[in-house]
């Protein structure tokens, strides 16, 4: 394998934050406190859609112990345009309204006011004293309903972007996208088999175990400190700066340890509110969401409606692929319909493709990113349809995919031509896995599906400092959500040629290191890793200069090898190699402290592909599906710390199993969320799953010195379709809607039963 010539990369040392996290010492969002802090709480709309006629906070303000109350009036109005905030493109008009409802409450759980009080009990009491005069409006939950003429309109100003000619009609369709390659009609005309189906997916939550939490302290001189559990403290700073008109340099955000995010902690909910409450009360304010608030008002990802039509010739060549994808964006525009459209057929080399996407608002919480945003939804529909094609052609599902796999030179339907990619290698690895080579056990059935994600790069900064004893601190600015400290330390140790335990990685706050984009899109090991490698290289240049001074030679007469400065050749002179510790000891005499820095906008993240295999059994009476065996194969570039790479794959699969079999947002007729807790929103537990086998296919990414590719997003893309395909083989029932929960599956099986009896 590719990592053989490395000393540290590809090994599995203990993570630097391990001891803290197994002893309860690690401090997460809710574990930070300040002297004299107040408790902040949010009043949330009980209505799915209502005009806010007035809010009377006087009684709450008069309650003893209440120190501040805020409503939308306390937040400045924002322009209706897309602007950068912490490098995210966002419409601040919408963001400020999501943080605190203005004219209207747009979903059950929408924040309408907040209080800060001396105790939690007083804060709750104060919320009950706030009088909101609502005019309840007709609401719409479902995407298909929201797209219909005559549907309740959420935003009077919204017009569909992407229509030619433009329309001037108020609508819930925020955007229409279209991608075309070749000629779809001509392609379909060539097909021997054409399969067309319509699918639905439910909104699902990221389900991080740690609720959103923040502590904010605004001082009288205008400075602000924030502790927040977030995937991007620089984004928290950026959004708070914009939303509250505070200069970024006045806001210092510390990312606490983070208890899961999966994309859901890349936006702000509590932070601007806590700052405002702190400004008004003159005291630090701590806010922690309850689990029900997490479900009602944060996340989730879109549910959607998709139509897919695929045509293939008898020999298994896919000649035409057509899909329409309509995704819920929640109460404000901005679903991941773009990536859903682009990922849909990205695994395959198909001549004729047409993809249409719609971004649709409805009375649900605004969606947030969730692992490979959009891709799993598209893959559910596309990979199910491809399985139907394989069945119709009586082809092995992996062989069909191999025959049509995207490879270097494949032109995608969204434009770019692929460079080096690993789709074929991943399919072959899945085909050769012990799992696929084992015959399916009696009573079990097997399903296969593939998935794609782009991976992202973007901005990172890093620094490396040598201590006086020659050990090294590596400083970066991305919260460690799944072991990234270990990966960064491994790359630093490898680059510097010292032992892993001589390198200590630290995550700095927004005032202590340059800008870093969010921990998300599987970018940290790639982009921040690149920044760390470059910072260490910068430090090595510095170290070589110090050796040159000591030896009185030119800097380029010195080389760096295995942690030592050495003369480049015997011509330079006879010098004993100088270790990091020796150079550090003399730093004062040779020019002061020895540091390295790097900042970059990482390009070429390199796409990833995954192929999953599942064996499962179905209890025909109850509709309960038992996952018996699962294998995830993925092109991972270079596995820096293989345990955490495997862990990413296993975790993604578990979330995918939940998405496939149980998880969904359930609303009642009034548009109120019915299952805002872990009991009724059922995520997989240990007894629901088998061990999850992984096959790491290492196709190094040419854009990274150690070949790193993002790995965290891809594994959630294939599971739903893999499971649906296996269920279809087990039962002859093709499920078209997610989740394939016991009640739905048993209903579908019952519907089939008379047919079977008649046959």
């Amino acid at each position, binding site marked *: 394998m590719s990592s053989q010539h490395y000393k540290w990369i590809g090994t599995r040392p203990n993570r630097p934050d391990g001891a803290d996290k197994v002893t309860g010492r690690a401090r997460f969002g809710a574990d930070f406190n300040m002297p004299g802090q107040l408790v902040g709480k949010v009043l949330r709309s009980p209505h799915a859609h209502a005009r806010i006629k007035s809010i009377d906070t006087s009684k709450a303000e008069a309650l003893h112990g209440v120190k501040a109350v805020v409503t939308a009036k306390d937040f400045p109005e924002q322009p209706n345009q*897309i602007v950068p905030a912490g490098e*995210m*493109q966002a419409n601040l008009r919408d963001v400020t309204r999501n943080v605190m409802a203005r004219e209207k409450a747009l979903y059950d759980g929408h924040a309408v006011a907040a209080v800060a009080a001396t105790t939690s009990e007083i804060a709750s009491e104060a919320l009950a004293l706030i009088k909101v005069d609502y005019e309840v409006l007709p609401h719409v939950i479902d995407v298909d309903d929201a797209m219909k003429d005559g549907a309740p309109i959420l935003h009077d100003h919204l017009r569909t972007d*992407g229509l*030619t000619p433009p329309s001037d009609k108020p609508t819930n369709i925020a955007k*229409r*996208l*279209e*991608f*075309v390659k070749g000629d779809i009609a001509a392609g379909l005309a060539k097909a021997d088999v054409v399969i067309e189906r319509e699918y639905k997916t439910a909104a699902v939550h*990221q389900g991080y175990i740690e609720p959103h939490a923040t502590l904010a302290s605004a001082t009288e001189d205008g400075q602000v400190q924030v502790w927040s559990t977030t995937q991007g403290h620089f984004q928290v700073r950026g959004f708070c700066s914009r939303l509250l008109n505070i200069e970024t340099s006045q806001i210092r955000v510390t990312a606490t340890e983070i208890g899961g*995010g*999966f*994309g*859901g902690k*890349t936006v702000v909910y509590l932070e601007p509110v806590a700052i405002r409450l702190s400004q008004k009360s003159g005291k630090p304010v701590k806010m922690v969401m309850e689990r029900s608030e997490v479900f009602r008002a944060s996340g989730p990802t879109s549910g959607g409606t998709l139509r897919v039509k695929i045509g293939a010739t008898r020999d298994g060549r896919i000649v035409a692929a057509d899909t329409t994808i309509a995704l819920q964006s929640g109460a404000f525009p901005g679903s*991941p319909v*773009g*990536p859903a*459209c*682009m990922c849909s057929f990205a695994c395959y080399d198909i001549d004729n493709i047409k993809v249409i996407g719609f971004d649709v608002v409805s009375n649900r919480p605004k969606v947030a*990113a*969730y*692992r*490979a*945003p959009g891709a799993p939804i598209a893959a559910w529909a596309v990979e199910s349809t491809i399985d139907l094609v394989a069945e119709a052609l009586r082809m092995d599902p992996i062989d069909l995919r191999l025959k049509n796999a995207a490879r270097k030179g494949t032109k995608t339907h*969204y*434009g*770019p*031509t*692929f*460079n080096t990619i690993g789709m074929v290698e991943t399919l072959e690895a899945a085909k050769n896995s012990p799992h696929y080579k084992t015959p399916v056990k009696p009573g079990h059935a097997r399903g296969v599906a593939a998935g794609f*994600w*782009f*991976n*992202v*790069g*973007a*901005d990172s900064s890093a620094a490396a400092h040598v201590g006086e004893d020659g050990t090294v601190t590596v400083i970066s600015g991305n919260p460690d959500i799944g072991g990234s400290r270990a990966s960064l330390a491994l790359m630093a140790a490898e680059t510097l040629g010292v032992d892993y335990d001589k390198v200590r990685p630290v995550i700095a706050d927004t005032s202590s290191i340059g800008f870093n984009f*969010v921990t*998300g*899109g*599987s*970018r940290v090991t790639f982009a921040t890793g690149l920044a760390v490698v470059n910072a260490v290289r910068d430090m090595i240049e510095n170290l070589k200069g110090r050796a040159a001074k000591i030896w009185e030679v030119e800097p380029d007469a010195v080389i760096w090898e295995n942690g030592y400065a050495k003369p480049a050749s015997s011509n330079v002179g006879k010098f004993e190699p100088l270790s990091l510790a020796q150079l550090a000891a003399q730093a004062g005499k040779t020019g002061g402290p020895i540091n390295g820095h790097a900042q970059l*906008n990482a*390009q*070429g*993240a390199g796409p990833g592909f995954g192929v999953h295999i599942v064996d499962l059994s179905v209890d025909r009476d109850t509709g309960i599906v038992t996952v018996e065996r699962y294998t995830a194969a993925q092109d991972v570039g270079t596995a820096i710390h293989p345990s955490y790479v495997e862990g990413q794959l296993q975790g993604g699969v578990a979330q995918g199993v939940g998405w496939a079999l149980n998880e969904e947002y359930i609303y009642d007729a009034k548009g109120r969320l019915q299952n805002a807790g872990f009991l009724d929103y059922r995520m997989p537990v240990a007894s629901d799953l088998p061990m999850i086998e992984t096959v790491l296919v290492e196709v190094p990414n040419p*854009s990274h010195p150690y070949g790193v590719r*993002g790995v*965290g*997003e891809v594994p959630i893309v294939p599971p739903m379709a893999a499971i649906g395909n296996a269920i279809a083989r087990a039962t002859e029932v093709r499920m078209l809607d997610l989740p394939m929960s016991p009640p739905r599956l048993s209903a579908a099986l019952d519907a089939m039963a008379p047919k079977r009896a008649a046959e």
Partner: protein
Amino acid sequence: MAKVVLTYSFARQFAGGKTEHEVSGQSIRHLVRALDERFPGIGDRLNEDMAVAIDGVIHQNAFLEKIAPDSEVCFIPALQGG
């Protein structure tokens, strides 16, 4: 001359439905400027919410990125990860 590829809906909105365009320029900045002269208004949108793929490699923010004369440059919807 680089080959610039726009998404179909973008092309319909701004460029009379034509998705592929020959444009000269040494960097993305130059390409966007040249496109904006041809199709007024397209520049802001390209800078605002589009990512760029240059010869298959996706760039989130490619303002200064150099372009080879025979490069393929695709403007695609911006991405965010989880």
